């Protein structure tokens, strides 16, 4: 066996192993609580002490937790609000959009035993839950394609236009438009 064949074989086997690992590792399809669909655990946790709990119940994220969140690079903006919700606390933040001034869900502080864990909601949550109310269509795909990710679609259309122009430049030889 030539060395190049052996190394190619090795690469193929490694790639296959990686794919098998990925398939085993991703959350079950359609699991509504998986990281991709609902939230991500930021691996930030504190003990449940009485003053932390009273702070959260009063609508303030305690300093010990806020510092850890800021260290992770997701600082809490001004004007946030804490609302208790089954098994934890929702942290709502203002996003500064002029036409949609209401607060948006951002963090979830979950109580598990005697630890508090910080979760961050993933982007599709607003897209999934609010698209009918904000865009007036039950079709999530269209709402995402042309509205929430409008720039992306504009770029895709430009790519197709560029392909057409390239073919015209290469193959059209008749000097007449």
């Amino acid at each position: 066996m030539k060395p190049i064949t052996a190394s190619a074989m090795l690469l193929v086997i490694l790639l296959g192993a990686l794919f098998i690992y990925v398939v085993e590792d991703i959350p079950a399809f359609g699991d509504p609580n998986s990281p991709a669909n609902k939230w991500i655990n930021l691996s930030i946790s504190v003990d449940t002490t009485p003053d932390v709990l009273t702070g959260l119940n009063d609508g303030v994220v305690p300093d010990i937790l806020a510092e850890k969140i800021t260290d992770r690079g997701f600082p809490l903006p001004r004007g946030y609000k804490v609302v208790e919700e089954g098994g934890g606390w929702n942290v709502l933040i203002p996003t500064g959009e002029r036409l949609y001034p209401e607060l948006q869900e951002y963090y979830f502080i979950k109580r598990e035993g005697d630890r508090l864990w910080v979760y961050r909601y993933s982007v599709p949550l607003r897209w999934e839950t609010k698209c009918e109310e904000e865009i007036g269509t039950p079709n999530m795909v269209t709402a995402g394609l042309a509205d929430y990710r409008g720039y992306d679609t504009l770029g895709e259309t430009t790519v197709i236009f560029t392909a057409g122009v390239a073919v015209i430049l290469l193959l059209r030889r008749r000097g007449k438009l």
Partner: protein
Amino acid sequence: MKKKPDVIINTIARLMIPFIQMYALYVMVGTEGAGGGFQGGVVFAASFVLFVTAFGITKGRSRLPESWNTALSSLGLYFYAGIGILCIILSLGVANYLNYGALPLAELIDRAMTRGLMISFVVEVGIAITVMAVFTSIFFDLAWKPEEDKGGEQ
């Protein structure tokens, strides 16, 4: 070399093309059904491909002249980018690019409805026009043979 027109192919193409184009319009317009601008545009381009297959390329070009085709392929992109600019201009610089909810139409009807209408009747149609024109243009450029040049248009 001129091929003789085939009665079966011509009749079936004549029958199918209007339905294909109607289906393309159904796919491209509206936000509630499946599909969208890209798919609708490609289905529309497929109807031109069928026309050329059945009736020949010179007749196909006379139905969709090259000048129209070139103009249409950028017109759709102008629709899409233009509605984005209009959102900034008509809201006097308050809103972002492509923020359909800021159009003055939202004062008359619901804001959510404005966004839905703009998506279904401007953005998707714009995408569909560009995709249809570009795919048709690519097909015509690839299918054109030099000997057909003389018997061509006019």
